[in-house]
């Protein structure tokens, strides 16, 4: 056995069935099956549809990952699986499947936190994470600011969205503008030809009073409504809706708040590393704005490549490998999938 652990990770918390294989910080395979197309006409993920798709996809995705990595299950040192948070029924397919694999192969199993895995995945791209670090996790399901002192032990939540997740706001605004689900990529694309200063949309929880009570929290519900009202007023007056300008102005409002609060967290806590993860981290404007603002204060921004930002099995394997390397005890076989798993738990 090599000194670095060979870990297989399984992800099934939402609509992506992911199986990743890593050796330490080296990515060997990242196989993915997505049910996103089956959810598109519903404008959001339908839990039962996702669960059914996970059951169908798990074994074929396992085979693909093992082939891609050129290893067999016998070579694997440990199996990691997302235990939560996420959709209960979807999580359970991955958890039960991982337990079956662990039992059959007599390997240790690690039930891990999906959000901590979004942080850990960056080690596959940029090597070990300097600690402490601030992590900004933004996707269709979560928007959180965390302080990471020791990724093997737990992370400290600093703030989170009080209503919609950032990715959810992208989905809703995209729908409003007649763009497909998920909304992130089409808005990013349209925004490139738009003027981000054309319309001034509200920045949630950035007022003086909010900065006392909700300094590191986010709110995107008001923004989404403001965009809807603006577009509707335009439509009613019979004027054309400048889709690209709306997309650019909306996107800038989201990215402005996210990066402003993330940099604020780094500065007030004296932390020099900001890692951004989750599907929204694939947004080109978010990355550019974070890099530009961080540079002013000597803060290093780490963003993994887009395929590692969205949900995948490699992130779960990366966190599993981190736990194995840290000497963390494996999970017991009776652990439950926890749809509301707290961030303070890295593993179960």
């Amino acid at each position: 056995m090599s000194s670095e652990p060979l870990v297989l990770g399984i992800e099934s918390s939402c609509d992506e069935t992911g199986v990743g294989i890593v050796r330490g910080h080296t990515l060997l395979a990242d196989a993915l099956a997505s049910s996103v197309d089956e959810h598109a006409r519903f404008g959001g993920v339908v839990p039962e549809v996702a669960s059914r798709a996970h059951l169908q996809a798990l074994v074929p995705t396992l085979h693909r990952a093992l082939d891609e990595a050129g290893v067999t299950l016998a070579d694997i040192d440990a199996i990691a699986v997302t235990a939560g948070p996420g959709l209960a029924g979807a999580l359970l397919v991955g958890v039960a499947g991982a337990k079956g694999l662990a039992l059959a192969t007599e390997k240790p199993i690690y039930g891990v936190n999906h959000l901590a895995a979004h942080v850990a995945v960056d080690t596959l791209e940029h090597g070990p994470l300097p600690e402490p670090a601030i992590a900004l996790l933004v996707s269709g399901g979560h928007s959180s600011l965390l302080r990471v002192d020791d990724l093997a032990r737990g992370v400290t939540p600093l703030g989170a969205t009080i209503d919609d997740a950032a990715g959810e706001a992208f989905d809703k605004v995209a729908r409003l503008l007649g763009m497909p689900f998920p909304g992130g990529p089409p808005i990013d694309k349209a925004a490139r030809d738009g003027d981000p200063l054309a319309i001034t949309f509200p920045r949630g929880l950035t007022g003086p009073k909010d900065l006392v009570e909700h300094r590191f929290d986010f709110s995107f519900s008001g923004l989404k409504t403001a965009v809807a009202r603006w577009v509707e007023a335009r439509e009613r007056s019979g004027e054309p809706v400048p889709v690209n300008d709306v997309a650019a102005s909306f996107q800038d409002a989201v990215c402005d708040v996210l990066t402003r609060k993330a940099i604020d967290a780094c500065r007030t806590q004296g932390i020099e590393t900001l890692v951004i993860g989750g599907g929204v981290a694939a947004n080109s404007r978010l990355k550019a704005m974070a890099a530009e603002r961080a540079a002013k204060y000597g803060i290093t921004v780490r963003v993994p490549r887009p395929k590692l930002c969205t949900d995948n099995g490699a992130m779960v394997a990366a966190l599993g490998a981190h736990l194995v390397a840290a000497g963390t005890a494996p999970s017991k076989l009776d652990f439950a999938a926890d749809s509301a798993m707290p961030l303070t738990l890295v593993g179960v």
Partner: protein
Amino acid sequence: MLVLVLDTATPAVTAALAEVHPSGHAVLAQRATVDGRAHGELLAPQIDALLAEAGVKPRDLAAVIAGVGPGPFTGLRVGLVTAASFTMALDIPAYGVCTLDALGLRTAGRALVATDARRREVYWAVYADGRPLTGPAVDKPADVAPKLAGYAVTAAVGEGAAKYADVFGLPAGAQLYPEPSALVELAASRVCDGAPSEPLTPLYLRRPDAVEPAARKPALSASER
């Protein structure tokens, strides 16, 4: 040949180890815990305990037999994904058995098999001397009851039959959940013949609950329009 037997299509989280030979079959050890909400927590430790108890290593297994439902989806999937990952890891075949068929196997004459489908419905089928006379279906007990006379049903088994005994007007038998030995019996010939592995397709019998979104609601209040 040693086989692992799983069924999670009812609240009874069931696992067993059985020996199957052309000359016969026997269940060596079995466990069933009735808890409709904890399939994911209970099943793997039960399998682990069974293997340990029998002194069997996973690699000694020659096949997995799994109940494919119908049953409440979340629990049903736990057994099927466990069976699928086991057979994948050990490169052994999987064989599916309709859970209602396992419940109906030991009934005599015309019998109703009904399990609890939640939402005040049952998964059901009618059996004639242990063999299915109808395909599995999901319905309200009150909609099943009038059909039973037509099939000349005189007996009923399964948790659903017990729960709605007064609606069906049939005395419910003692058997509430599928017996591992019945699952083994229904798959034994496939195990002995080395039949090709089967995809374990769950019998959902219901579509997912999902509604397409309605037209977008106006964001401006009436006075602003």
